[in-house]
């Protein structure tokens, strides 16, 4: 096998020279105490070195007087000292404001930021732990250019849509997440406080080392490990908060509803209910939004034990997090408990073993979300305000007015019993061998085992007034209870071996070469079942075997597996500290692809030039000026495990016989595609990094072009085939973007402050769809019985597509004069533009009416520190995107409406925006049109933090090392023109389901108080 080649070249030898013993103490500038954990390395041979102990002391044996010692510590200037005749060397390290010295994890290697030629964004623990974020991905929001983060729902525990450099594919657009080297499918299991650094590999050259999985970018997370020679430390961090809905939609009250409905009834030739005759008597009625929203608690507790001796170090953390929903309260509760142990042991001077192991238990209660049919939100927005929440007898009421499909949302929440419980272990053990001569070898074995149980129960209920005749509409009763259980077991294993060679030649050439192999094997097992008609209607008894007839269970079982085999190599070369080169090559073989295309090849190249280190560079103001360029290829392999094969599936059943025996039928539903292969994205990136004013101001800009080809798409085949289309590699897309980020940090004065800003522009279009290029419809809108979006060549992904409105017909003459819309079109109806000028308004008059993707997203964060006080603000927003407001069921004439409906047309000149009231909507005013497309731009004060750090004096009294008290708020202020509950809507149901508000669960406005203590 090829990997043998990597290892046969190993030669190990040792030399012995005249040695010198050195000792000394290291301090940080302006601090009296010794600096713990400072790295001291021999410049000539990085395998020789040590770390300062608790007092800042060290001792080291170096080969000769000519040796140079390198003292380094994150955040401080690296200092080099030639040993000479000294035997005691004391060093004071000065603080370094420059970010260029930070160590960046770039995938199998670490590099100083100044030496990176690709595009990588970094967040440190401080950026993450100082905000009471609920999920790790949130830390990226507003802080990193080129990374767009939106909550897929405001409900606790919801996933987030993370899009690196826009949506580059019509398939899965999620980045690859790697936690301590373990690929994972999302970060809900991770305690945000455990994160040491997050690095986002944005350009293809950086991500190419992850080959077939890197096309959407890579998020690398390192969890906090122990540091050697560190005194034991115990910290507590915790907060408690309350969450409330940010704002409500302005809806009609009972009187207004009755007024409008009366008109609508009459216009449709129907007699309105008698009680509508006197609207003022109906008053405000029920506010269904008030009925479903509540104030909900949120809390987090976290304990950390960290410490390290001369040969080992450990960090042990435990955390508990709990959040109730602002809709549903405990019915939407998310809880997470984690424990983590990260350790490393220097078993031999040349052998270090270690582990990063985290166990997570999490439980999420779920309500129906973002559904235009039966989510509590959509029900609350559409239920008529006349119906009370409860009847006089205290039981829930149903509506006699709104459509029978609109059910009482409060009852709906009460009848929901759905819980997802996860037990998950993610971790690795590794061994590092220092082979000498600059060679090292690392072997890592990782596991990600997730056992989850999903339980659901729909109890019996009936809102009927007379239970014996059960007159309530179908949606308001469930006469047969049913229970379901699903067990899921994901078992992902990975082994990786990496050989690294690091060498410095003549102080001029710095070379790092790695070569590695990896193998991943994934297996999923699922089983479960359901049953109905349980004798007990108590959720506590909701088990599928708790029934009179245990044989009536409906069980199922599924299983699938996939594997990935990889070979990769990477070389970083640095010449004279000025010229940087990097190249990677990865070969990935995957079981998911067809026999003819099992392997994919992913190369990349990048180069950088630190112009400011040239002789001719004279500027003192701009201390660092670096140019970067990169090119690379990545793949996207996120498709089904067996898409290439034709599988005969059973379950195509038919019932025969007098006793209706369900009899199995089997057939292949999909045609095979043995040529199935990777989706490939090729990306070029140019960038510039600048540092000014002694490192206080830095600026980064990147421009990229990302072309995705062979995009996997099951392009609809003519239905005459009788089968479903297999995925084929046929579509193409192109994204171009510009990212700018600037940070200013002043730490020299008593008032320390920093300001950071970033902005990202992305334009993406689809450049090919195969097979004649038929547009791909998406975004089904029930009220129009049509799709609101389509993806077509030359257009952004999932653009809104529909009719263009042109005011309201004021007179019969105007109706007559305009193109034919409908026989029953009348004054008061919407005039749609006859775009093709054929005198008839039909589907050929539709056009592109909006883009759900922002023109740009931006973030602004600022902090001020003075005398222990600290104020931090993070703003974040998007500009230029549209939202399709699909929260009112216009297909039902009887449901409630937003208050703007009051401005309806009632006669010539009364309105040119709101059509007349009519139950039947004969003109189809509710067809997909720009009437429902709203500006989705927003600016949001995402996080506000006010903290007090106790002074040294207080701390000594309290025998604490550190104490911090803070208050914080999230989503405090939002500026938007969008009329719905929340403009920050994510992406549920695939990359093409974007920008459509279907009763989105809004994000809460949260106020918290928190405490951090270190003993």
């Amino acid at each position, binding site marked *: 096998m090829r990997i043998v080649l990597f290892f046969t070249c190993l030669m190990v030898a040792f030399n012995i020279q005249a040695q010198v013993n050195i000792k000394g103490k290291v301090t940080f500038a302006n601090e009296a105490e010794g600096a713990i954990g400072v790295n001291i390395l021999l410049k000539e041979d990085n395998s020789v070195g040590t770390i300062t102990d608790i007092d800042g002391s060290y001792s080291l044996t170096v080969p000769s007087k000519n040796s140079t010692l390198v003292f380094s510590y994150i955040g401080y200037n690296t200092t080099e000292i030639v040993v000479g005749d000294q035997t005691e060397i004391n060093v004071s390290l000065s603080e370094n404001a420059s970010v260029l010295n930070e160590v960046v994890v770039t995938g199998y290697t670490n590099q100083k930021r100044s030496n990176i030629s690709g595009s990588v964004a970094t967040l440190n623990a401080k950026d993450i732990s100082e905000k009471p974020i609920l999920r790790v991905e949130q830390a990226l929001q507003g802080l990193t250019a080129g990374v767009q983060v939106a909550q897929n729902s405001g409900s606790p525990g919801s996933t987030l849509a993370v899009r690196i450099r826009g949506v580059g594919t019509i398939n899965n657009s999620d980045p690859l997440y790697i936690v301590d080297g373990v690929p994972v499918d999302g970060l809900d299991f991770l305690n945000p406080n455990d994160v040491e650094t997050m690095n986002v590999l944005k350009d293809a050259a950086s991500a190419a080392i992850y080959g077939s999985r890197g096309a959407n970018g890579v998020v690398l997370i390192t969890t906090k490990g122990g540091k050697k020679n560190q005194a034991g430390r115990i910290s507590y961090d915790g907060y408690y908060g309350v969450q409330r809905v940010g704002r409500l939609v302005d809806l009609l009250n009972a009187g207004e509803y009755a007024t409008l409905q009366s008109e609508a009834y009459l216009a449709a030739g129907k007699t309105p209910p008698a009680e509508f005759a006197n609207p003022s008597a109906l008053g405000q009625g029920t506010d269904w939004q008030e009925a479903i929203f509540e104030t909900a608690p949120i809390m987090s507790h976290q304990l950390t034990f960290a410490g390290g001796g001369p040969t080992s170090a450990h960090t042990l953390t435990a955390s508990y997090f709990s959040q109730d929903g602002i809709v549903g309260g405990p019915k939407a509760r998310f809880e997470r408990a984690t424990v983590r142990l990260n350790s490393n042991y220097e078993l031999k001077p040349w052998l270090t073993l270690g582990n990063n192991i985290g166990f997570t238990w999490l439980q999420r209660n779920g309500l129906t979300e973002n559904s235009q049919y039966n989510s509590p939100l959509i029900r609350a927005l559409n239920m008529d305000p006349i119906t009370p929440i409860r009847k006089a007898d205290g039981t829930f009421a149903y509506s006699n007015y709104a459509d*029978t499909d609109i059910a009482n949302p409060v009852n709906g929440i009460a009848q929901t019993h759905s819980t997802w419980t996860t037990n998950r272990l993610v971790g690795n053990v590794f061994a590092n061998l220092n082979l000498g001569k600059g060679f090292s070898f690392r072997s890592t074995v990782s596991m990600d085992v997730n056992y989850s149980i999903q339980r659901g129960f729909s109890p019996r209920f009936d809102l009927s007034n007379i239970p014996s005749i059960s007159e309530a509409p179908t949606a308001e009763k469930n006469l047969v209870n049913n229970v379901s259980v699903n067990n899921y077991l994901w078992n992902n294993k990975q082994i990786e071996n990496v050989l690294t060679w690091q060498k410095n030649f003549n102080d001029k050439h710095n070379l790092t070469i790695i070569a590695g192999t990896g193998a991943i094997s994934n297996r999923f097992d699922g089983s479960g079942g359901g049953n*109905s008609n349980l004798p007990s209607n108590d959720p506590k008894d909701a088990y599928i075997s708790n029934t009179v007839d245990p044989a009536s269970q409906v069980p199922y079982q*599924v299983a699938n597996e996939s594997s990935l085999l990889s070979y990769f190599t990477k070389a970083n070369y640095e010449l004279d500290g000025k010229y940087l080169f990097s190249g990677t090559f990865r070969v990935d073989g995957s079981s998911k692809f067809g026999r003819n295309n099992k392997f994919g090849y992913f190369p990349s190249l990048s180069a950088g030039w630190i112009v400011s280190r040239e002789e001719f560079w004279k500027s003192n103001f701009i201390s660092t000026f670096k140019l970067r360029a990169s090119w690379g290829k990545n793949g996207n392999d996120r498709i089904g495990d067996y898409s290439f094969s*034709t599988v005969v599936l059973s379950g195509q059943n*038919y019932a025969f016989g007098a006793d209706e025996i369900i009899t199995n039928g*089997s*057939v292949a539903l999909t045609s095979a595609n043995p040529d199935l292969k990777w989706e490939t994205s090729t990306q070029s990136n140019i960038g510039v990094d600048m540092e000014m004013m002694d490192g206080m101001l830095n600026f980064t800009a990147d421009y990229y072009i990302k072309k995705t080809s062979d995009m996997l798409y099951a392009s609809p085949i003519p239905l005459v085939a009788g089968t479903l289309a297999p995925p084929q590699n046929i579509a193409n897309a192109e994204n171009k973007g510009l990212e700018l980020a600037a940070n200013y940090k002043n730490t020299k004065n008593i008032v320390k402050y920093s300001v950071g800003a970033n902005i990202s522009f992305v334009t993406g279009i689809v450049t090919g769809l195969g097979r004649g290029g038929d547009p791909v419809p998406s975004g089904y809108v029930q009220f129009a019985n049509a799709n609101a979006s389509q993806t077509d060549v030359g257009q952004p992904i999932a653009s809104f597509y529909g009719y263009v409105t042109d005011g309201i017909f004021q007179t019969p003459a105007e109706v007559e004069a305009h193109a034919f819309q409908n026989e029953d079109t009348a004054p008061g109806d919407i005039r749609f533009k006859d775009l093709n000028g054929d005198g008839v308004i039909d589907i050929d008059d539709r056009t592109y009416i909006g883009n759900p993707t922002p023109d740009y997203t931006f973030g602004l964060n600022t902090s001020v520190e003075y005398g222990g006080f600290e104020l931090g603000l993070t703003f974040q927003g998007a500009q230029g995107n549209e939202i399709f407001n699909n929260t009112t069921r216009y297909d039902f004439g009887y449901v409630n409406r937003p208050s703007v409906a009051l401005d309806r047309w009632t006669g010539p000149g009364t309105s040119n925006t709101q059509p007349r009231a009519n139950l039947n909507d004969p003109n189809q005013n509710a067809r997909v049109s720009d009437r429902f497309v709203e500006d989705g731009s927003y600016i949001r004060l995402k996080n506000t933090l006010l903290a007090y750090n106790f002074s040294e004096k207080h701390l000594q009294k309290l025998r604490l090392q550190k104490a911090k008290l803070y208050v914080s708020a999230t989503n405090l202020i939002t500026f938007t023109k969008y009329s719905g509950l929340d403009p920050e809507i994510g992406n549920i149901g695939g990359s093409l389901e974007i920008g459509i508000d279907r009763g989105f669960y809004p994000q809460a406005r949260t106020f918290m108080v928190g405490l951090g203590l270190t003993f």
Partner: protein
Amino acid sequence: MTNSKLTVLFIFIVICFSACTKDFLEKSPIIGITEENFYRTEADAIAGVNAAYATLQFQMSEAGHFRWFWGDIMSDDAIKGGSSDNDANDLLQLETFKGPTNTDHLEAEWSADYEGIYRANVVLEKVPGIEMDAKLKARILGEAKFIRAWNYYNLVTIFGGVPLADRVLAPSEYNIPRATADQIWDFIEKDLKEASADLWARSEYAPDDLGRITKGAAQSLLAKTYLWRKKYAEAKTTAELVINSNEYILVNDYAEIFTQGGENNDESIFEIQYMNASGGNWGRNNANEGSFTNVFTRARGRFGGFGFNIPTQEFVDEFFKEGFEDPRLKSTVFRIGEPMGDRGIFTIEETGGFPHLYYSKKYFNNLSEQAPFGDPAPNGGSNDRVIRYADLLLVHAEAAAQSGNESAARQSLNQVRSRVSLPNVTATGSALLEAIYRERRIELGMEAHRFFDLVRTGRAPSVLGSLGFREGVHELFPIPQSQILATNGALTQNFGY
């Protein structure tokens, strides 16, 4: 030290090797079986043809035939109904003959038909190679041929000439153009003749196979095919094969036919099977044995239905044309004040305030018959009575009348009438033909025959003209626009659309 380093390194290399076995990247589906390894046993053959049967049940998008969409709503017997004009608005446009060419429902019909044809073609290609009982194999092939013919029958009567897929198509063949209607009809005739020869008679099936396609079903559909093609002599003799087989009778009680107990009774020739206890759900109902027809045609309001397929006043009036109320009316529609089974009394208020005076009754299910688990909406249990013996007798009557044998025609017609104690018809000539047509409208009312009968007999322009029907155009529905696009225009649109 050097040696121990190398030893540790060696161990890691060995570990890596053992992880990377030769077939590491070869993963086949764990559940399910690849097509190459299937179709080897008798059980595989049966499972194969059962999958073709499953397409008969398809309803709703993206693939499905609601036969009453076309047969009833498009005729003068019923209107669309629903929650408002916007509820399945495309059906409203089609029934008022302003039809758009991109309707989901036409596409669903097209899709379901071709899925059935594909599955039948798979059986006809794979099963001949299986070693198994010859009689059973012949039956299975006959069942597949009937299912293929039935789907083409749907296609040709709805769309006219369509692409002829007489085998599993290769991707390069997806753009085949439309065959002529005659070519499709010829193909149907051939399949049905072969199926009639191979299939078993109804009485030859075991009780557990009740619901499978029979010789009588193939002969009846062949008779209907001949009748459509105006091959009256062949239609008559083929219908007589069914009549003389003594496999079928008219049951005594007309009202009983449409009850749960009347499913697969002695009058049933071809019935699509549905059941109310499959636990299926919305969507493509492969695994769902339930029918949506029950919920779609039930009244809204407290009856929990969607209120589609509303009988017209004109249709109800037809039942009174002989001077008294035809006894079959009470089995065909619900009238105000009548109980809707065990679900309560029909009043305007109880149906959600919709102004409809009638609801379709033939596919009504009682609350007590509702699915005991799963969502009751997609789990209606009523079988779709596609061909009843009464239909076959009226086919025979029409074929006989058209081929000059009026006494045979009257005998079959009066057999249908005498079952509900109506006086014999004695008419001759065109009056006899009119009487047969009228009998079809009443006897088979709300069973999805009317529109096709009107088109087949050329009466559609005069009967439906006031609704917008134009002769030469609306005999056929438009080819789904999506399919014209998907084939890059290889399919042409029907005239007038």
